[in-house]
């Protein structure tokens, strides 16, 4: 199978920061808003280089989202940033009414999503944000897998007219996608060709899916791995074409199985081509404190979990 090289572990939020640096130079209408998390969102350089386009709102996320909506009136492209929990759940109604229903060109960019923010624990580990955001009509939902892809997505969404939720994280993870690659919203990426099982992965779980495919190959199982960086709109065609070939699927995400990628895939398959599916996701639970690796092990979100899920789905097929 095709091998991917990790060019070095780095956090996806730094990919966001690098993308914002780039946008600072190329897109004069891009403005950034931050609720007292400049360093955590890697916005220090943007704030330093473009102070007139950087808006520190203080610890007041509801006001930040409303301001971002208002800033679009007159042509700005606001990137409203915080931790994923405070950028979605805390401000759901503000996003719903002032951004999504009002059709405003706001980019909600959220770091520290999922379990891998680690030791801060469940108050900060949102596992429901993809579901919250994908249910909003007109909202585009993107969950890139590494530094390079997060940077590319950050840049790409500036040229997309409409509200976007961009989700990334805190831990250092393998960086393996092409540097300065083109990011196409809604276009799933075939990473590995296979015929026995389709593995659909998003975010941090994409690298684990690649590792799982390697392990499975050693046992003679040919897994097809697809990077679903865009949860909404889902690349229906890519998924259905793969399922046609493999007749079973495992979905992988750092999110509750309710409301996440797996649920979107189930809906697509139920309508078009029902096959057995296994979910690598959290099982309707909150997280807890621990190291990212410990948490991903305990909650079943790593390479081993994906291999086990593949074996389960193959046994049913």
């Amino acid at each position, binding site marked *: 199978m095709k091998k991917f090289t990790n060019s070095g572990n780095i956090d996806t939020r730094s990919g966001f920061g690098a993308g914002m640096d780039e946008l600072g130079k190329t897109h004069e209408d891009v*403005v950034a808003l931050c609720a007292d998390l400049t360093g955590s969102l890697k916005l220090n350089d943007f704030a330093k280089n473009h102070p*007139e*386009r950087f*808006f520190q*709102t*203080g610890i*007041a996320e*509801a*006001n*930040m*989202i*409303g*301001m*971002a*909506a*208002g*800033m*679009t*009136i*007159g*042509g*700005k492209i*606001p990137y409203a940033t915080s931790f994923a929990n405070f950028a979605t759940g805390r401000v759901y*109604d*503000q996003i*719903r*009414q*002032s951004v999504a*229903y*009002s*059709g*405003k060109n706001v980019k909600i960019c959220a770091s520290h999503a999922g379990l891998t923010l680690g030791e801060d624990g469940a108050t900060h580990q949102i596992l429901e944000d993809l579901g919250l955001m994908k249910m909003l009509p007109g909202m585009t939902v993107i969950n890139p897998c590494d530094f390079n892809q997060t940077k590319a997505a950050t840049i790409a969404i500036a040229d997309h007219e409409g509200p976007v939720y961009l989700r990334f994280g805190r831990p250092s993870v393998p960086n393996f996608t092409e540097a300065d690659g083109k990011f196409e919203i809604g276009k799933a990426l075939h990473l590995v060709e296979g015929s026995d099982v389709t593995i659909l992965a998003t975010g941090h779980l994409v690298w684990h899916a690649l590792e799982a495919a390697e392990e499975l190959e050693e046992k003679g199982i040919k897994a097809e791995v697809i990077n679903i960086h865009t949860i909404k709109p889902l690349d229906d065609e890519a998924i259905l074409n793969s399922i046609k070939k493999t007749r079973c699927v495992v979905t992988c995400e750092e999110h509750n199985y309710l409301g996440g990628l797996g649920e979107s895939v189930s809906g697509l398959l139920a309508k078009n081509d029902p096959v057995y599916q296994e979910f690598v996701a959290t099982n309707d639970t909150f997280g807890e404190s621990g190291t990212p690796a410990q948490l991903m092990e305990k909650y079943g979100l790593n390479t081993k979990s994906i291999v086990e899920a593949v074996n389960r789905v193959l046994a049913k097929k």
Partner: protein
Amino acid sequence: MPNTKQLEDFVSQVRRDIVRQVHQVSSGHPGGSLGCTEFFVALYQEVMKRKEGFDMDGKDEDLFFLSNGHISPVFYSVLARSGYFPVEELNTFRKIDSRLQGHPTTHEGLPGIRIASGSLGQGMSVALGAAQTKKLNGDDSLVYSLHGDGELQEGQNWEAILYAAGNKVDNLIATVDLNGQQIDGSTDDVLNMGDVKAKFEAFGWDVLDVEKGNDIEAIIAGLNEAKSRTGKGKPVCILLHTIMGHGVDFMMNGHAWHGKAPNDEQLEKALAQNPETLGDY
């Protein structure tokens, strides 16, 4: 510029539009709409710098955001009669396939509306954002917003009030409709907010009272005074002392008509108190 008599005639017609809209679908919010009629007429017919037609960005013109979206009947009537869309469209208020939703929205593309409102407490943040963009664009026109007094119970307002003063957003004039009423009763009974003026001032705003909030000349004077206070490093707040239901005697002096429609007989009484001046829709 229209004279006072012309503005008062406009007000009378808007009041007719309000009660007729609410009556025709037996739902909607006449009380706050009637109480703010003079304010809307003053703003759109006299005070705001407006361009012909409508575009979302509203560059080089004043902008207005309605935060307490439930008083949509007055907003729709004044927008229609100020030329944003056909007056006949008031006939579609709250009906299926209409651009005149129960609460105002951009979703159906109604000219004059720049943000959805209805879920309370969000409009000041939106107005702040628009005001910041005007500054970035070097656009020296102003941003106006209107808020209910009960609405100030929503915490997001105070985030915005804090931000506006802290960041010297001095191209914003936020008006609070101080009618002392909300759905469940008087604001004092539901959640006493104490001295609203002292609160805004403590947060660093420049605050002025318009005691006669249903007197068109007093409102214009207040708005012009507020305009003269912009650009001086502080956001400006107008406390507009209105009477809920003003202009329809049986709807005044209480919260009963916050969100209740008149029946046929009540409609006739309300219309008799507000002569047709510009032609009913």
